[in-house]
């Protein structure tokens, strides 16, 4: 049986504070995925809806949120870049039966949930680590404050089937990664219902990616 620990255990050392910042980046990633759903709906909603979205992005609250998200997500990116090379098993190229790659199409739908969950988490984590920081600069500063992106440009870039699929998939995996991390954060803070919160957030980002993708398609 484990001994009890204080909910503030992570304040005892710098490493744990950094770890919790990385875990907290998950909540920002979920919210950011949902912000993209809103943005996708706005782009497909016409010029007026796009202007309304711009006004939201220009608000001081949204600017402050972007700054906070940037700080947390940057911790995640730095950790990812430092950790991933170490985590690759040695002689990885020899370990993949390259001729059997087509098997993936058959085996993937039959894979166990915990493995599929980790696969989605890892893909989402990789995309978040590489893209979230530059994207936060785009939606936090470039779009609302520079006038470099007009409604016509946003429409041309996002309102087509390819962009719809890419945007919906990105919202899904980034949101999924964030949801899993947020569930972990809840557990780390000593609450018992981390898995339930994770499932609610999975549903939310799943629905959001569908809404965002469909909005850009129609």
């Amino acid at each position, binding site marked *: *049986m*484990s*001994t009890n*620990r204080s909910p503030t*255990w*992570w304040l*005892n*050392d710098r*490493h*744990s504070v950094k*770890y919790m910042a990385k*875990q907290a980046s998950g909540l920002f990633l979920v919210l950011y995925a949902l912000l993209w759903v809103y943005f996708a709906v706005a782009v497909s909603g016409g010029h007026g809806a796009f202007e309304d979205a711009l006004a939201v992005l220009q608000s001081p609250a949204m600017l402050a949120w972007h700054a906070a998200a940037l700080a947390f997500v940057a911790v995640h990116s730095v950790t990812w870049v430092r*950790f991933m090379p*170490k*985590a*690759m*098993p*040695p*002689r*990885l190229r*020899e*370990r*993949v*039966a*390259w001729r*059997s*790659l087509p*098997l*993936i199409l*058959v*085996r*993937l739908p039959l*894979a*166990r949930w*915990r*493995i599929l*969950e*980790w*696969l989605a988490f890892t893909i989402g984590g990789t995309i978040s680590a590489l893209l979230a920081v530059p994207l936060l600069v785009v939606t936090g500063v470039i779009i609302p404050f520079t006038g470099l992106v007009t409604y016509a440009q946003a429409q041309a870039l996002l309102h087509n089937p390819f962009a719809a699929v890419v945007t919906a998939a990105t919202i899904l995996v980034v949101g999924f990664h964030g949801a899993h991390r947020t569930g*972990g954060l809840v*557990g*780390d803070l*000593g609450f018992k219902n981390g898995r339930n919160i994770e499932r609610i957030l999975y549903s939310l980002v799943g629905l959001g990616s569908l809404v965002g993708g469909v909005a850009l398609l129609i």
Partner: protein
Amino acid sequence: MHGSRTLRIARCNAATGGERSFEEYSVEVSADTSLLAALEHIAAHKDETLSYRSSCGHGVCGSCSMMVNGEPRLACSTFLRDYQGTIVIEPLAGFTVLRDLNVDVDLFFDKFEQAGAYLAPLPETAEVQRNHRQWPEDLALIDPYSACMLCAICYAACPKFRENPSYMGPAALVAAHRYNEDSRDDGAGFRLARMVGEGGIFECAANEGCSLACPKGIDNAAALQGAKLLALLTELGIATKPTRARNSS
């Protein structure tokens, strides 16, 4: 001499249902006074009821794990010259306290059985008998994990084990991974089923505290991440074991 230090030591006797309390002891410290030497001095000269576990005294056996100012460490490899003022000594976090600094480690050793962290030898064919030798390339795959001395420090450093004691934890899962990687082993099938199940590798949140705390420098977090990737490749039917011994004689 490096002066004196005050050890604030957690005292508790689970058998009598006692609550944890702290007692302070002052000890004289020289350049090479380890925490274990200080505890031995206290038990011999100041308070013979002080209970702690130790064996080799040289960082080999992993018996004297405890919390030092909130960090899991080996008492024998912790030198008091590196600390100032009062040093707080507590039993290893995450485990049930038996008495003072002694914890119940049965839970820890049970995890190895749970994870299947033992060799499942290849069938004894003539080919296998000839190839019981291990090539250096194959040894290199398991060597980084073989230094584990079962001190359980990685468990005290793992937030996920502290949150969920049914998690098999770093040492047992890394040992299981080490056997999966062993060119002489044939048990990856049953072992992976355990490793990806409840309490297995996917509970790990890559906190890396286990790697930082390991007295033997084993990068447990990286090993577990690698084990997850290999579990995925296996599940997708595209994993092979890169053993030179199987492919050459």
